[in-house]
């Protein structure tokens, strides 16, 4: 063995031990610093939101600016309607796109579709709002719930499509072959067999898309506009919860600030409830032992 200064005699230096401890501390600190605002936000939502939550809030229309009292009933209902309409269009189109990508699109064209879907996913929501504004609102010459749902539906499609594709790809091929071998046509195999097997994941994807657009405000700014009263039709400006929160938060009225917190609490509860409901429904529906 040559006797050049040997590694064998090097002891673990203090510097290395110190660096190791510092790195550990930093990682823990990072975790704490990230979770802290989360806790803070939920805490404030809970405390400030509950303070202003009362029956009047849930059932009454907004009062004129400056007057204390009133509620966001129209916004809650409006959001519900807009989200329902958006889901009615966004989810089927998204699932269809996902089916395409998984079952028919394992080729170059499919790659292009996938890429386009990703592009759509990354478009800032306000830009979608602008596009829908000029596409629908300008043409109709008025704001509407319909335009708002169109914008939200557009935003739902890529999320649903991606989830559907991923889940369908996880369905083992031998199940498909078994169905086809029984003489079941491909379209029915896809719907009744593959999609059903993947249903838990697909539903989760739809729920994720729903939760994401439920809180979106930007696309509604110039499509639905908002409304201090009940809308009499879907073709009118409609109140929506995120819009109302936004308007109230930026207003100079203290009472409206309080109501903004209450509205935010309702919004979060809505989102969490939707997520939870879907989780419960899907877990009840799966067989024991099914993944």
């Amino acid at each position, binding site marked *: 063995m040559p006797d050049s200064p040997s590694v064998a005699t*090097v002891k673990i230096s203090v510097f290395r031990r110190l660096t190791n401890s510092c790195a550990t501390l930093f990682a823990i600190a990072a975790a704490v610093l990230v979770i802290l605002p989360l806790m803070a936000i939920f805490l404030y939502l809970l405390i400030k939101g509950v303070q202003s939550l009362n029956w009047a809030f849930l059932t009454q229309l907004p009062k004129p600016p400056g007057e204390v009292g009133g509620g966001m009933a129209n916004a809650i209902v409006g959001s519900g309607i807009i989200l329902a309409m958006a889901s009615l269009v966004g989810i089927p189109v998204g699932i269809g796109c996902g089916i395409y990508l998984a079952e028919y699109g394992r080729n170059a064209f499919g790659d292009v579709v996938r890429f386009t879907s990703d592009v759509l996913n990354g478009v800032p929501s306000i830009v979608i709002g602008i596009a829908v504004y000029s596409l629908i609102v300008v043409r109709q010459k008025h704001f509407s719930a319909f335009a708002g749902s169109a914008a939200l539906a557009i935003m739902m499609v890529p999320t649903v499509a991606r989830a559907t594709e991923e889940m369908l790809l996880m369905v083992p091929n031998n199940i498909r072959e078994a169905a086809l071998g029984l003489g079941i046509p491909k379209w029915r195999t896809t719907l009744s067999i593959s999609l059903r097997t993947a249903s838990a994941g697909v539903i989760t994807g739809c729920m994720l898309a729903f939760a994401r657009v439920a809180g979106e405000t930007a696309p509604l700014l110039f499509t639905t506009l908002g409304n201090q009263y009940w809308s009499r039709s879907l073709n009118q400006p409609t109140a929506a919860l995120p819009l109302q929160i936004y308007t109230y938060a930026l207003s100079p009225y203290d009472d409206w600030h309080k109501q903004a917190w209450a509205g935010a609490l309702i919004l979060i509860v809505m989102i969490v409830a939707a997520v939870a409901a879907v989780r419960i429904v899907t877990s009840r529906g799966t067989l024991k032992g099914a993944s």
Partner: protein
Amino acid sequence: MGVGIEVRGLNAWYGKNQALKSIDMTVPANHVTAVIGPSGCGKSTFVRCLNRMHETIPEARAEGDVKVGDLEVYGADTDPVEVRRRIGMVFQKPNPFPTMSIYDNVAAGLKLNGFGNRKQISELVERSLKMAALWDEVKDTLHKKSGASLSGGQQQRLCIARSLAVEPEVLLMDEPASALDPISTSKIEELIFQLKQHYTVVIVTHNMQQAARVAELTGFFLMGSLIEYDKTEKIFTTPADKRTEDYITGRFG
């Protein structure tokens, strides 16, 4: 020069399952000792306990006395990091660092341990690669090719060179040739034969012929216990324990 290993009462667990039951074994310096046995017998676990790699698995722990030279591996004041520097390990599947060149792969351990002098590192890299019988094949592409661009057998020799660079006293090899083709395997076996001049080698193998070719001593493990430990010749010709005989003759395993 290599040092001897003294194992007394080594026990190891994965969670609640006991994988090693009170192992006693003395490995002489500068010899090649093989550890054989059927799947799940604890031979890999045993070897990983020697350099305290076993405890890196969550829920795994080991207790007992292991003395490598003058180092108490499981001593209260012993730093596992130091243990691992002094006891090298080569794994079953070659695992060179793909983002580093061949040179950087071999030098990795040196840089970790605070070796700064470029000339010294260069010398040590060359020496290690020569000892691993890889120098001639890679000396022109040391900095250009990545560690992962070599063939399987070359990658494993690179991993051996990497382990040797930090000048361990003991080299542990966990089925080093099982992922390789026969030609690379025989190259590795030749290498092991050469290495024993400078190091103490413990090699885990499921290939009994390999143990017979390469090792002077062989230990037979079964279900977490060391059944028999003796000169390789004796184990394979006149084993003392019937279980050893059954395994050797292929009645199970």
